[in-house]
């Protein structure tokens, strides 16, 4: 193992790591928002919209991210819509992630017992107030494992961005291997890179799950 080499290329990895985290964070944020909206639409069975949401969910979950990205990055410019690679990455991650989040939240919302919702209604709460004060707080504790798993999944999916020329961890590694041929070192640092991001998150999630289960609201 050429440690000298690894130290030399460390700056590249730092930039790549930072970019990976940045794109993943933005993607997760937007995916969460999309997920919340979609699961609410499904829960309240909003006419027309809920069918659209279902179509969206099926498409997003049954196609690979790479194809979604290629379509956005290579296909769309041909019909006049040109997006930067970062935009494509974020849109792709949001599109895919939103469907996973919607599923996680939907299960959580349905886990809230019907009589809780009725009690809220009997007190005169509006739909919005019901979601805000009664349903979502309880959804949160139920959905934490699924939400966490989705976050980890989305972070891993950023490796796919290497297909559309974004210099995140995987792409940086490939380029470096192409230039210097130090494949062992480069791949070693790549794996470490992902471990640095995902191990802490994994552990945090395990802790969070345990804490939330312990505080299991009077059930």
């Amino acid at each position, binding site marked *: 193992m050429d440690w000298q080499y690894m130290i030399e290329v460390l700056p590249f990895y730092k930039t790549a790591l930072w970019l990976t985290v940045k794109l993943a964070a933005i993607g997760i944020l937007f995916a969460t928002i999309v997920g919340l909206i979609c699961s609410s639409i499904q829960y309240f069975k909003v006419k027309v919209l809920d069918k659209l949401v279902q179509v969206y969910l099926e498409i997003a979950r049954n196609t690979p991210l790479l194809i979604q990205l290629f379509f956005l990055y290579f296909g769309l410019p041909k019909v006049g819509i040109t997006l930067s690679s970062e935009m494509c990455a974020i849109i792709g991650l949001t599109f895919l992630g939103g469907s996973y989040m919607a599923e996680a939240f939907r299960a959580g919302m349905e886990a809230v017992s019907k009589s*809780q919702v009725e009690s809220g209604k*009997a007190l*005169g*709460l509006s739909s919005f107030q019901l979601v805000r*004060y009664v349903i979502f707080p309880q959804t949160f504790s139920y959905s934490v494992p699924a939400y966490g798993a989705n976050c980890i999944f989305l972070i891993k999916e950023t490796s796919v961005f290497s297909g559309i020329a974004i210099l995140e961890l995987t792409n940086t590694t490939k380029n470096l291997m192409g230039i210097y041929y130090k494949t062992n070192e480069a791949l070693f640092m790549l794996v470490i890179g992902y471990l640095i991001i995902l191990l802490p998150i994994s552990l945090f999630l395990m802790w969070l799950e345990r804490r939330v289960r312990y505080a299991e609201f009077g059930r």
Partner: protein
Amino acid sequence: MTPILEINGLVKKYGDRVVLNGIDLHVEQGKVIAILGPSGCGKSTFLRCINGLEEVQGGEIIFEGEDLTKTSKWREVRQKIGMVFQSYDLFPNMTVMENILLSPLKVQKRKREEVELQAMELLDRVGLADRANAYPRELSGGQKQRIAIVRALCTNPKIMLFDEVTASLDPEMVREVLEVIAQLAKQGMTMLIVTHEMNFAELVADEVVFMDKGKIHERAPAKEFFANPKTQRAQQFINILNF
């Protein structure tokens, strides 16, 4: 005196199955009516129609001059018709006080100091003033149910609906809840109580309504009903319970 709540010919169906087959009931202000009947006779459904948790297919519910079956303003109606459920259903993510304050503050938009004062006073009356900051999971079933009643009372309803509120409780806790309801009765609250507690019904209710298979079979002043049930079905029902 015009009744505070008038129900005429109420019909409710689930698909083709008729659950309520023309219910007529006039409720006068300040009266306590116990609704009794075998399981599946429709008494809970009946209660839930009154505050709009179930849709009706026929008949009218007249409250404060308006026919509720045609209203879209359920949120306002529900502030005036309070309901307590069998599963008490305190919101687990909030403390007792937060549970009680939720509707008055967020729905009725009242001032916090005023509502807190009322809440503490009510909690005191049910003997739970010291638990204002506890979470539901720290309380017993009887305590939770009493707080559910306080929560419903804090919206200043004109009528209170009770749906088998002691059915999920351990026997030792049934009494503390019934005492609260008896207290309310004495203070003149108009109440419709669906219950299996016969002795309680006899003591606290002004009138008893006996339902079976979606219809009202008998309605009589409480003492009279238990001493001398007129219909055969009612007689069978009471005899079964006097095991």
